[in-house]
C-alpha cells in the first residue's frame, strides 16, 4: 500500500512539475509576444506621430506589458534619465521576472536605446528589436517543447513502473 501510494505520488509530482514548467513557459511566451507587439506599436507611433517617450510608454495599454511601461513613464516623468528609468523598471517590475537573464539584459539594452538617435535609427532599432524578440520567442517555444517531452516521458516511466510493481 505504501509502495503504491509512493508511486502515485511520484507520478502526480512529475505531472504537476511538467504542468507548472509549461505554464511558466507559456506565460513567458505570451509576455515576449506582448513585448514584440509593443515594439510594433512603438514603430508605428514614432513613424506617424513622433510622440515623446513618456507619452509612448504611458499610452500602452497591453495588460501584460503595462506594468513595465507605466513604471518607465512614471520614472521619466519624475526627471530620471531613460537609462535609469529602464534599469529601475526592469529591476522592480514583476512581469520581467518571467524572463531569463540573457533575455532581460538584451531587452533592457534595447529599451535604453530608444529615443537616443534620430528617426531612421529609431526605426532600425525597433526592427532589430522585433527580430531579437522573435528569436527569444522561438527559443522559449523550443524550450517548452523540450521540457514537456521530458516531463511526459518521466511521467510515462513512473506510470509504467507503478503498473509493473502493482502487477
Amino acid at each position, binding site marked *: 500500500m505504501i509502495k503504491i501510494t509512493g508511486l502515485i505520488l511520484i507520478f502526480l509530482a512529475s505531472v504537476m512539475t511538467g504542468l507548472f514548467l509549461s505554464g511558466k513557459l507559456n506565460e513567458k511566451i505570451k509576455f515576449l509576444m506582448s513585448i514584440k507587439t509593443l515594439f510594433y506599436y512603438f514603430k508605428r507611433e*514614432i513613424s506617424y506621430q*513622433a*510622440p*515623446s*517617450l*513618456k507619452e*509612448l510608454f504611458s499610452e500602452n495599454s497591453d495588460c501584460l506589458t503595462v506594468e513595465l511601461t507605466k513604471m518607465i513613464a512614471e520614472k*521619466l516623468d519624475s*526627471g530620471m*534619465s*531613460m537609462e535609469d528609468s529602464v534599469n529601475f523598471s526592469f529591476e522592480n517590475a514583476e512581469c520581467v521576472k518571467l524572463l531569463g537573464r540573457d533575455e532581460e539584459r538584451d531587452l533592457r539594452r534595447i529599451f535604453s536605446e530608444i*529615443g*537616443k*538617435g*534620430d*528617426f531612421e*535609427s*529609431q526605426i532600425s532599432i525597433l526592427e532589430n528589436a522585433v527580430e531579437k524578440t522573435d528569436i527569444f520567442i522561438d527559443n522559449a517555444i523550443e524550450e517548452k517543447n523540450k521540457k514537456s517531452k521530458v516531463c511526459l516521458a518521466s511521467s510515462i516511466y513512473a506510470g509504467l513502473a507503478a503498473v509493473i510493481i502493482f502487477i
Partner: protein
Amino acid sequence: MDKTLENIFRPFGDVFYNALDKVKEDISEIRVRCEKPVVIYICGKPYFLERTGNISLPKKALDPIIITYREMKNIFSALCEFSFYKYQNNINNGFITVKGGHRIGVCGTANLSDSSVRSVSDITSFNIRIAREYIGCSESFFEKVDIRSGVLICGIPSSGKTTLLRDIARKLSGVDLKKVSVIDERCEITSSFGGITAFDLGLSDIYCGFPKEKAIFQAIRTMSPEVIICDELTGNDAESVLMTLNYAVRLIASVHCDSVENALRNSSIVRLLSTGAFRKIVFLEKDIPCKIANVYDSEEIFHD
C-alpha cells in the same frame, strides 16, 4: 511652479532648481555653454549662479557653477524628453520648442548631406528663451494701429513681437470674434501640444509646424480667414504674402528689424513691403517688451 518651467529647470539639478524657482517670474533667458558658467538673464541683465545657490553679477561671482559636457548632454537630452527623433528636424534647423512655447536655440557641429543639415552633433551651447504671455499687451497696438489693412511688426529679438502677435490673435478672435488663422511654423506663438495651446489664443485656428507658404495656402482655401497672423517672415515668403492680398485677407506679421533705415536696407523686408500687403509698419521699443515705438505708413516710407 508652472509645470512647463519645472520641466526646464528640473534637469539642471536641485541647486539650480531652487535658485531659479525664486526668480522664475523675471528670467528671460538661460544660456548654457560647455565648461563655462551658466548665464541667467534676469530682467535683461546677465547673472551667474554660484555653488552656494546665490545668484550674483558676473564680476562678483566667486564660485559659479560650471556645466561639463556630460552634464550639458544630459540636460539637453532631458529637455528633448529623451526623444531626439521627436525634435530631430527642429534641431537640424537650430532650435527646439518645448512645452510652454519656450524656445531653445542649439549650437553645435553640423553634419551635412547634400548641403543640408542631416544632424547636429557635439552640442557646444544652448540658449533657453522663456516664453511669456502678457494678456492685454496689444491694447496700445489696437489704439495706435488701423488694422483694416495688413500690418508688419518690426523689432529686435526679445522685443516682444511673438508675445504681441499672440495677444493680437487672442483679442481679434476671442473678443472681436473675427475669423483668425495663426500660422505658427516654429510652434512658438501657440505652443500647441495634444491639440491644446499653452497660451490663450481666443478662437483662432492654428497651423502649427507647417511651412508658411503651405499653411497660408491651406488657411485661405479651407478656413476662410479674415485675418492671418504669422511670425518671422522672410523675403522668401513674399509670394505667400501676395496671395493673402489677392484673396483679400489681412495679414499681421512680424520681422526682425530695428529701424526704418535698416528696413529699407534689408532686401527681404523691401520685398515684403513691395507686395503692398502691409499698409502699416509698427516698430517696437528695444528695451521695453511689446511697447510700440513708432507706427509708419508703408507708402510714406517708400515715398521718402
